[in-house]
């Protein structure tokens, strides 16, 4: 079974995020493999362990995204395709999906795994667009992915529980943290990654015409900060006041 996992390098989510003057995310600082994509890699590796085959990482990003790709290879992925072109800086979701689709298509994968959304942009638009461009059925928010013959079966997380959704392979799934803690890259894995193939692909090789962007950022405003709650100090009747509050919001 051939599994493609899309991976992205993002600015360290634990560091404060800054915007550049043209309202793009400042990607100058420390960067990491998107933690959401680590779940994708983990899901891919688990399937490979169960069914054999190969896990191929596909990433679009600047030269330094090679570090994020290397992390995925160290976790155990077999090889990678890295689309890197200076003209792709600031690519929107549609262009990103087109690029990834063009890079993935020649691989003819049985399964494409993505995170539900990137931790930096958080649009969640790339995977559905990618499925459409690849002509694959998609199953989103999977907390469990199984392959049975030529069917892909997922447990799709919902607010109440989960749905069991089945799709004909080749298919695309987006995975949540429910697929299990991503494994540590072992030290052997880190050293072994030195000799794994990372194919560098330039935009021109994909035959994609870069049109005008489908999205543009018109303005940026801070999200409304949540109002501070009421602090109840215990002067003997705190329990009653808390109970009254809970009754008021219909929590009890």
């Amino acid at each position, binding site marked *: 079974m051939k599994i493609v996992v899309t991976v992205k390098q993002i600015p360290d989510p634990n560091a404060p995020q800054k915007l550049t003057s043209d309202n793009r995310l400042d990607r100058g600082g420390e960067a990491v493999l998107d933690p959401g994509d680590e779940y994708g890699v983990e899901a891919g590796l688990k399937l490979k362990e169960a069914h054999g085959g190969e896990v191929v990482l596909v990433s679009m990003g600047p030269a330094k995204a090679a*570090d994020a790709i*290397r992390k995925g290879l160290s976790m155990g992925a077999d090889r990678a395709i890295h689309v890197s072109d200076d003209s792709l800086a600031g690519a929107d979701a549609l262009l990103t999906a087109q690029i990834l689709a063009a890079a993935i298509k020649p691989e003819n994968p049985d399964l494409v795994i993505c995170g539900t959304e990137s931790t930096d942009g958080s649009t969640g638009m790339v995977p559905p667009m990618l499925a459409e461009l690849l002509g694959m059925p998609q199953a989103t928010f999977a907390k469990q992915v199984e392959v049975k013959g030529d069917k892909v079966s997922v447990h799709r997380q919902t607010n109440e529980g989960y749905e069991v959704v089945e799709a004909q392979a080749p298919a695309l799934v987006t995975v949540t943290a429910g697929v299990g803690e991503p494994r*540590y890259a072992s*030290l052997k*894995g*880190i*050293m*072994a990654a030195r000799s794994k193939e990372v194919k560098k692909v330039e935009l021109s090789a994909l035959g994609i015409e870069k049109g005008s962007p489908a999205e543009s950022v018109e303005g940026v405003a801070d999200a409304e900060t949540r109002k501070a709650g009421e602090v109840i100090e215990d002067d003997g009747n705190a329990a009653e006041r808390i109970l009254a509050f809970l009754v008021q919001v219909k929590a009890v």
Partner: protein
Amino acid sequence: MDFELSPEQKQVRDLCREFAQEVVAPAAAELDREHRFGYDIVRQMGDLGLFGLGFPEDAGGAGGDFLSYCIAVEEISRADAGVGITLEAAVSLGATPIQEFGTKEQKECWLPDLLAGRKLWAFGLTEPGAGSDAAGTRTRAQPEDGEWVINGSKQFITNSGTEISAGVTVTALTGKREGARGEISAFLVPTGTPGYTVEPSYRKLGWHSSDTHPLTFEDCHVPAGNLLGKQGAGYRQFLHTLAGGRVAIAALSVGLAQACLDAAVTYAKERQQFGKPIASFQAIQFKLADMAMEVELARMITYRAAIAYSDRGSVEFRKLASMAKLFASETSKRAADQAVQIHGGYGFIEDYPVARYWRDVKINEIGEGTSEVQRMLIARELGI
């Protein structure tokens, strides 16, 4: 001159840091308080590949370089120096001499378990009467019917008494040399060999999560095949082993010094006196600045020495190893002292990790060659 770590070295650092902070650090206070060896942590370190990191792939290692291994020791020691010394002693003193001087049979017999961290190997050089003067060994090994019979005792031997201690390399006199002191050879003694006794552990000032025991040998028979390398090679072997170990102890010291700096910066920002964080006082800022500078300098010479170690031809290596060990250990000592000072009375209370750092740090200036010995060695390199 390139001061950048390679992508793999950075990955090793990030991985070890994450592992150390998530797995090793949370357990440190309890292991320290209960003087307990962290079997579960050691097992996880083994699974991660830490014990085999610097060994070639065909020996079962990960094929990393010596600097990567030192970075691993640094990050683990930043979380718990006791666990750091467990790793350092297992690798630099335990497995490395077997890898470097062992026969094919010896390597095949012991290395797979040692590099996987399933078993630990110890190095018994120090004796009650032979510390800094390590060549003053009194332990003897006599040939008898195709075996060696060992008699004597060893002092302060790390990793010798755990449930997973597989054995110890002991240095012993095997003969006299003309005029000079005795001929020294090294032997591999498996745990459980009749006549080899691991005595009860010490009550140590620090490194409570590490395992240290006196050893005694009474008519302890080992097969001829347990001689490590050539007869009489023991002295040269242990000089080599200790030189590599010194760089790793320097890395351990850098990790502990960094932990002191981290804790001191955090505390100085939080602690309010005179209506302000104490970090706003210049006296505190200057202490922190000095600590940060010294930690960085210690790290630089340690990494430099580590690279010189890999580069076998480097004539500078021995000098750099001593300088790194000396400077980093003394830096860590000052850093621990200042970290406690910045914590005031709270630094004297075991609720804060700096109290443990302060107890753990002193040994850095003693083990694998005291500061005095390092100064002697550096002076010798100056041709004095």
